[in-house]
């Protein structure tokens, strides 16, 4: 399923958090949304999973305006892993994962055999099957993140949006989750902070700065030293990954500079 953002603008209290954002994610494509803090990445995603209504513009699913769909119907197409990592009540892991079926269910009917198998498979894929009967509130942040990811898979969406899915995850589970995204065949729009993981995971990257799209393209086109300097304000060297050939960034810390003090100010060049 194709996901298109068309002229997406979100204004809150007169300030544009996202400005005229146009972005296409082809069917089965993994697109990474990167940018510094406060650049509007999460805001754009929230419009896709409909937690936020855009001020202007639209989110299209296979050309159809998602705002016209009932919430339930769009939840059958789009699943989200949000930054909400908690829970008010101590559901078991199995119960939490099963909640992913709710847009497909009527009333309080129990899960069908197929749905239970689906849940079991998702829990296995995210390595939480052994936690099935534990309460989610007793888990670590990373374990809970994986439970919520399993819940999103069980939703059987055709579009998956993820807001910093690698939060709280250890290296192994980061790699496993991103590999899963790559191999899922789903249309994926994912916000990632780690540019190297983004380059390795995504078919294309889109860069946001102050709510506007400043670059979009395959990782080699986008991740240039100039762009990283301009957008993130850090010096980086781009090298090919020795095995995969993906662009990888090597950062250099800012050269040691003395803490400016009023006395030394006059002597600066």
């Amino acid at each position, binding site marked *: 399923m194709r996901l298109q953002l068309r002229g997406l603008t979100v204004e809150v209290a007169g300030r544009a958090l996202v400005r005229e954002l146009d972005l296409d994610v082809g069917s089965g494509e993994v697109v990474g949304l990167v940018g510094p803090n406060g650049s509007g990445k999460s805001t754009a995603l929230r419009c896709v999973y409909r937690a936020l209504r855009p001020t202007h513009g639209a989110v299209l699913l296979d050309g159809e305006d998602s705002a016209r769909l009932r919430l339930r119907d769009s939840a059958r197409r789009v699943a989200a892993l949000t930054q909400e990592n908690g829970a*008010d009540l101590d*559901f078991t892991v199995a119960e939490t994962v099963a*909640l992913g079926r709710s847009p497909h269910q009527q009333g*309080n009917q129990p899960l069908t055999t197929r749905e239970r198998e689906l849940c079991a498979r998702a829990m296995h894929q995210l390595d939480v099957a052994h936690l099935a009967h534990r309460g989610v509130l007793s888990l670590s942040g990373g374990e809970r993140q994986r439970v919520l990811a399993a819940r999103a898979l069980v939703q059987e969406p055709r579009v998956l949006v993820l807001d910093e899915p690698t939060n709280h995850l250890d290296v192994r589970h980061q790699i496993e989750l991103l590999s899963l995204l790559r191999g899922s065949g789903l249309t994926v729009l994912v916000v990632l902070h780690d540019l190297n993981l983004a380059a390795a995971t995504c078919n294309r990257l889109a860069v946001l700065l102050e709510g506007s799209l400043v670059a979009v393209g395959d990782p080699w086109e986008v991740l240039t030293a100039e762009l990283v300097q301009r957008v993130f304000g850090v010096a980086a060297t781009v090298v090919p990954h020795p095995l995969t050939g993906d662009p990888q960034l090597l950062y250099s810390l800012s050269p040691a500079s003395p803490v400016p003090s009023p006395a030394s100010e006059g002597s600066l060049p």
Partner: protein
Amino acid sequence: MTAPHGIDAAAAAPARPAAGPTSVGLVVAATGLFLVLLASIVVAIGLGPAVISPGETARYLWAALSGGRISASEVPAYQIIWQVRTPRVLLAAAVGAGLGVVGVAVQAMVRNALADPFVLGVSSGASVGAVTVIVFGVLAGLGIHAVSIGAFLGAALASVLVYAASVTRAGITPLRLVLTGIALSFGFQAVMSVLIYLAPDGEATSTVLFWTMGSFGAATWQSLPVVAAVVVLGAVVLRRYGRSLDAMALGDETAVSLGVDTTAVRTALFVLTSLMTGAMVAVSGAIGFVGLVMPHLVRLVVGAGHAKVLVVTPLVGAVFMVWVDLLSRTVVAPRELPLGAITALVGVPVFVVLMRRRGYLFGGR
């Protein structure tokens, strides 16, 4: 209490009943609790200053329901059973069930473990309504129901005010709702204090005591049907929101991504719980503690899933309230202990013990 999935209470780890096919266990648990409720009702109707055995009680009840015959010498006992105690015990069951189920819904609606049916200002609004009727004699044309109707109108007015004050363009948000409810409760209490201060007689004061501590002493066959119908229908409708409440416990954004219109659900729940609470407070006053603690107690045993909690809580609440009312009218008979005092005295220790024994976690742990 019947544990639905055969849980070993001694389980050290916070292990939970399996979440798989819940329906079978749930049906067994609900049936068991329903039978316990029926038995409790029959026993409680038989007990009082004049003790009547459960068998006799059942026979009188059957006679009343089926239009059967009893001998003339049995008429006084029959009158006590059917005219005095039966409506009272049934009212206790209905209100206990209602407070429990509304407590579950309100805690989920405002996403707060400390919420209870009265947190949104309904009970203090009802008290203002009732006191207004007594002090100013308004609604006098409605006869003996004037105070109840006044209380219900007060509760409804309070709900409307709380809703109007907390609604924004983004709908009603949980924290705003709780804060508005608590703030307006203080306002209503102030209004009530002024009314009582200005009241010419002492009747207003005793009415206020009635409303703050709760009692089923005023139960009659006339007052029972409305509140019973509201509670039963309300509980059935609330159950339909089970899965939405589950989703909302994961956060509003996640709930929306699961297809739950959180604003619409919150508005519907607000209307429903206000209506149920108003109907209950109007006939029995504000009985504290049940709506706060019963939901937690049930979650401790059956887990957090609302499909189960919304069925088990009203049944447990009803059983609990029937026995509390029995204690209230028998321990220091002929005087009655306030229900609120008993619910707290019995429930608090049970709750603390259970909470300490099992690793119970709610929200921020």
